[in-house]
């Protein structure tokens, strides 16, 4: 895994971590795709199970593997967590909403 996982994380009790062999706990987050990001993934929202202590950046890497076409916008985009712009290093918690923000064009 890309991110260093804090060992002492008191995670939320998800009993089925079958897709994360090396993790003892995982959390679920919702990922939102807008505009070009939605066109590239074909989805508006994806519920994702990630290892406890994953950062927004490592989750983005995971998404790039799931949806390689997202490479097109990853040179110029922003991430938001729970409706606020967030740094890639921010750790995600169970139930967080991670939004992929492609280049803006409001106005």
């Amino acid at each position, binding site marked *: 895994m890309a991110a260093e996982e804090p060992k002492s994380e008191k995670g939320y009790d998800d009993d089925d971590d079958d897709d994360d062999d090396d993790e003892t706990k995982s959390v679920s987050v919702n990922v939102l795709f807008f505009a070009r990001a939605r066109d590239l993934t074909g989805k508006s929202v994806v519920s994702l199970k990630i290892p406890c202590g994953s950062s927004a950046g490592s989750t983005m890497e995971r998404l790039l*593997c799931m949806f390689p076409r997202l490479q097109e916008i990853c040179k110029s985009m922003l991430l938001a967590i729970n409706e606020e712009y967030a740094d890639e290093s921010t750790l995600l918690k169970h139930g967080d909403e991670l939004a992929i923000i492609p280049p*803006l064009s*409001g106005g």
Partner: protein
Amino acid sequence: MSTSDILNPAPTATSAATSSLVEILESPTPLQTAKYTDFVRDSSCGAIATFEGTTRDTFGEKHVVSLQYESYAPMAVRQLKSICIAAKNAHSGVHRIAVAHRLGTVGVGEGSVFVAVSSIHRAEALDACRYVIDELKATVPIWKKEVYDNGEVWKENTEFVGKKVCCGHKVKVED
């Protein structure tokens, strides 16, 4: 978008927020600009500056058939509120601010965004009005798709400063 049709957050408790009106509207009808101008109107103010962004019928040599806006509405409202507060902090004579943005299909020539600012003297209203629309274009999660006769494209504001996120990393996701 799956967001509610109309987000019209009631003014909240803080004094900074009660003097701002922010609306993200999914509506087929033109913006009621008088509503926003009247919201900011105040007898203590000598100026109201407004900005209306309207949709063009051409981009380069392409003929634009329609423009479609979408938004991450809850975040857009939150972001616009904080822009209004920042605008007031940065421009001391500003009294009230109203910002509205339409979503969905906006007909060519119609307004997609409207900003109104009142202040004691005109300079602050004009400056703050420009500040609000510039910040909106740079930071508020709203997207515009131009639909042409022969295709469509998501536009990108020059004000937007995105960054490289995770490009080129090779990551093993699952064994």
